């Protein structure tokens, strides 16, 4: 059975269909010409009026046939491309289900393990506190995973709240980090705004926080350095604000620069089971950037050499569309030079 499996392969079926169709076109034309010439000979032999027997012109028949075949060919090609895309999506979804199951099962396993340990043993108070913290982290991880799926639904169906408020992004990111620093205990995160300017921008707070959370957790998740480091730097380039998120993580190949933003795409190889995560973090981050009229790009010098994720936001468009007059007055005005180094 395996030996004839190639016969059902979509590429073989596609090529075979095209050959069959092209052959049929050639044969139709050939037979038509044969019949026409036979008929022509008969007309001459029996002296029949030429227009009575052959009213239509040969080239019209050939043209019509060719157009029909071209339409069929286009149809086959379109179905083939859709089939390939469906297969690719199916594979990605399969990977996603496998890996997302892992992402859900891991915190549940940890929670169950510690709860059962507490039932079996009397632990010292300090140990209890330590393990309770672990459990709290696990519950946060669980809710984060669930939220990611829910948010994916919201973003894809565009059913998020259209509430954009003018926000100074540099302090916003610093406050966000301060509020969530317990999640990045072992990471050294540095924020830097060398120009000292204020950067007011209309943001959907919930979505923008999600973008930041995805980028920061990715830094920790895809990092095997002894000390996880992240540097967030603000830079104004012409009419754009660029926020660079550089890390010392596992990096990626040049070919993966765009792929990593694809839905369900995961760093690492799924076939050897080193791939982890949901494959949704950067996809969501890119979509959130687009919702804010911006874009996300990524760059890396190669595996093991860290990565730089850049969020680019247009400053001019924003000023025309939204923003309170008060905020506009402050925009671009240099304040004191901001630099914050946190552990």
């Amino acid at each position, binding site marked *: 059975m395996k030996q004839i499996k190639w016969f059902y392969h979509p590429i073989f079926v596609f090529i075979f269909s095209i050959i069959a169709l092209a052959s049929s076109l050639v044969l139709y034309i050939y037979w038509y010409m044969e019949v026409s010439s036979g008929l022509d000979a008969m007309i001459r032999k029996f002296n029949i009026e030429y227009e009575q027997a052959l009213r239509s012109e040969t080239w019209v028949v050939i043209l019509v046939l060719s157009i029909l075949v071209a339409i069929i060919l286009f149809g086959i090609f379109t179905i083939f491309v859709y089939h390939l895309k469906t297969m690719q999506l199916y594979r990605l979804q399969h990977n996603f289900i496998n890996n997302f199951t892992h992402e859900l099962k891991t915190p549940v396993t*940890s929670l169950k393990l510690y709860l059962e340990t507490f039932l*079996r043993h009397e632990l010292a108070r300090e140990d209890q506190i330590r393990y309770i913290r*672990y459990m709290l982290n696990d519950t946060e991880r669980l809710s984060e995973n669930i939220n990611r799926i829910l948010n994916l639904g919201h973003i894809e169906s565009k059913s998020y709240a259209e509430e954009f408020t003018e926000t100074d992004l540099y302090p916003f990111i610093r406050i966000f980090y301060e509020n969530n620093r317990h999640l990045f205990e072992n990471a050294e995160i540095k924020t830097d705004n060398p120009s000292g300017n204020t950067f007011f921008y209309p943001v959907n707070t919930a979505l923008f926080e999600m973008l930041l959370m995805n980028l920061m957790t990715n830094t920790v998740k895809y990092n095997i350095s002894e000390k996880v480091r992240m540097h967030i730097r603000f830079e104004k380039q012409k009419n754009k604000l660029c926020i660079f998120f550089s890390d010392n993580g596992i990096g990626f190949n040049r070919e993966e620069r765009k792929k990593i933003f694809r839905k369900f795409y995961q760093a690492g190889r799924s076939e*050897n*089971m080193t791939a*982890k995560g949901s494959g949704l973090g950067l996809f969501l981050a890119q979509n959130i950037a687009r919702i804010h009229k911006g874009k996300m790009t990524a760059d890396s010098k190669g595996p093991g050499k860290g990565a730089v994720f850049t969020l680019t936001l247009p400053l001019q468009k924003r000023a025309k569309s939204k923003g309170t007059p008060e905020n506009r007055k402050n925009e671009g005005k240099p304040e004191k030079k901001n630099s914050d180094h946190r552990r």
Partner: protein
Amino acid sequence: MKESRKKRILIIEDEIHIAEGLQLNLSLQGYEVQIAADGSSGLQLWKEWQPHLIVLDIMLPLIDGLSVLQSIRLEDERLPVLILSAKGSSKDRIKGFSYGTDDYLSKPFHLEEFLLRVERLMTRVSWYEGSSGLSEKTKESPCCYSFGNNRIDFQNAKAECHCGTIRLTEICRK
């Protein structure tokens, strides 16, 4: 290497919460436990520390769990390995056993079941130690052979020659 009466268990698990939870429970059961957070450090620790049992996760960074198991099985057929993985389908289990695991437990698991499985595997380790000549048999037949500058130590599965120390495979030992 320190000699200890306690049985040694190596946990190769990248989820530090789970690894620490297992370490805590196994230590309370009287085992000596070490943790490796990825496949390559797991292999390194296995060679250096020579544990009696390995608890192995499959989805690991750098080298995945099945590749780790494959490397172990090339050199040691007897070492008990218990796979502890979130991948729990029958297909995954069959794959695990075909790579040479002794036991397979999918996450999330019952702690008591895990501890009983470990205990059972350790009982088998004691049987091996009793029957493989490490106790009785080794007293009767020599475990080391020397010829020229070469030395073969069957008990510790090592051979020393001019090119250095070579680790003996299970087939060589037989």
